């Protein structure tokens, strides 16, 4: 009786781990859905995936736990972050509803679906709990056991997986490849074009005469106005140019006012002394 009860439950340590990490995983999943910026969503999803890797390890799936960290959080989430950076970090989701009541309907559907799933799990008779000890030990370890299955029983699925990966690689290359429609300019043509244009010397650097030297801050001309030429074209097109000229001018004005006040006070004091 006690043996049966012990077989149907996990150790206390695992229970503590489950409740703590499970809470964090749910918080991470919720913030993936709720946070406005795609970067924050990606980072919280990476956290959830690492916690799932810990759960795989706790469940005796040692190979999958390591693969989860290496493939999911290492490769897939970094690919996500790469695309987020490519598409634009500042592109926040618009919160305007295009379909009226869609958000509440979606939440209702999600709630109903969750209740359905939980009821299904609750009503299933899942009392047998064998543990993976015997299965892992049968071939000398978790990895050996998985290899034994992959290369015998599931070898055909494994081969098809290879075909799928090759297809995905070719598909990604085809989708992101851009055909060049015009001939590439030669160096001679580029130099001639440059001489004909009004800008023969290199473009001025950003941040010159400004108080910062970051690439997104336009350099200031001697009269204090920002020069558009100093910021690279990509940032200019995206509208990510920061303008500090007003700040600099305001600072200058404040300094002048302060010195004037100081001088005025000095003059007053001198007059009083006289």
């Amino acid at each position, binding site marked *: 009786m006690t043996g049966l009860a012990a077989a149907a439950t996990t150790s206390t340590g695992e229970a503590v781990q489950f409740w703590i990490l499970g809470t964090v995983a749910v918080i991470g999943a919720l913030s993936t859905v709720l946070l406005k910026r795609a970067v924050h969503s990606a980072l919280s999803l990476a956290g959830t995936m690492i916690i799932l890797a810990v759960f795989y390890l706790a469940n005796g*799936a040692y190979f999958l736990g390591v693969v989860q960290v290496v493939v999911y959080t290492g490769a897939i989430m970094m690919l996500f972050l790469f695309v987020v950076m490519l598409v634009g970090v500042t592109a926040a989701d618009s919160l305007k509803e295009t379909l009226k009541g869609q958000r509440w309907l979606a939440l209702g559907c999600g709630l109903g679906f969750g209740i359905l799933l939980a009821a299904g799990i609750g009503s299933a008779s899942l009392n047998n709990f064998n543990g993976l000890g015997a299965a892992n030990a049968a071939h000398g370890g978790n990895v050996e056991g998985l290899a034994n299955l992959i290369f015998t029983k599931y070898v055909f699925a494994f081969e098809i997986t290879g075909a799928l990966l090759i297809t995905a690689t070719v598909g990604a290359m085809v989708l992101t490849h851009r055909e060049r429609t015009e001939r590439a300019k030669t160096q001679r043509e580029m130099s001639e074009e440059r001489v004909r244009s009004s800008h023969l010397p290199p473009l001025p650097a950003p941040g010159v005469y400004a108080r910062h030297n970051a690439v997104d801050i336009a350099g200031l001309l001697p009269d204090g106005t920002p020069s558009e030429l100093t910021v690279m074209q990509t940032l200019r097109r995206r509208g990510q140019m920061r303008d500090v000229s007003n700040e600099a001018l305001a600072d200058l004005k404040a300094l002048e006012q302060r010195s004037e006040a100081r001088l005025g006070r000095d003059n007053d004091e001198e007059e009083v002394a006289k």
Partner: protein
Amino acid sequence: MNPVNYLYLAALLFTIGASGVLVRRNAIVVFMCVELMLNACNLALVTFSRMHGNLDGQIVAFFTMVVAAAEVVVGLAIIVSLFRSRHSASVDDASLMKL
């Protein structure tokens, strides 16, 4: 603790991911929610594998990971090419069949 709790956690994560797919409109975030759903399925498969004491569930989870990797590569390529033609990653903007 009963290991069925892992299944409840997987169901909860799957539900959160599904709601995210319905609610969000940034294509990248929608994609991340799909990944969350796949991960929840993997957790359920690993738990089933432990309950039944054989490794077949882990094999299926492994194949799910491979398919998810292939799916991410193609999906992100589609998102990048959509962004190139429309300068937006919102799923609402992709309302025409032709790019």
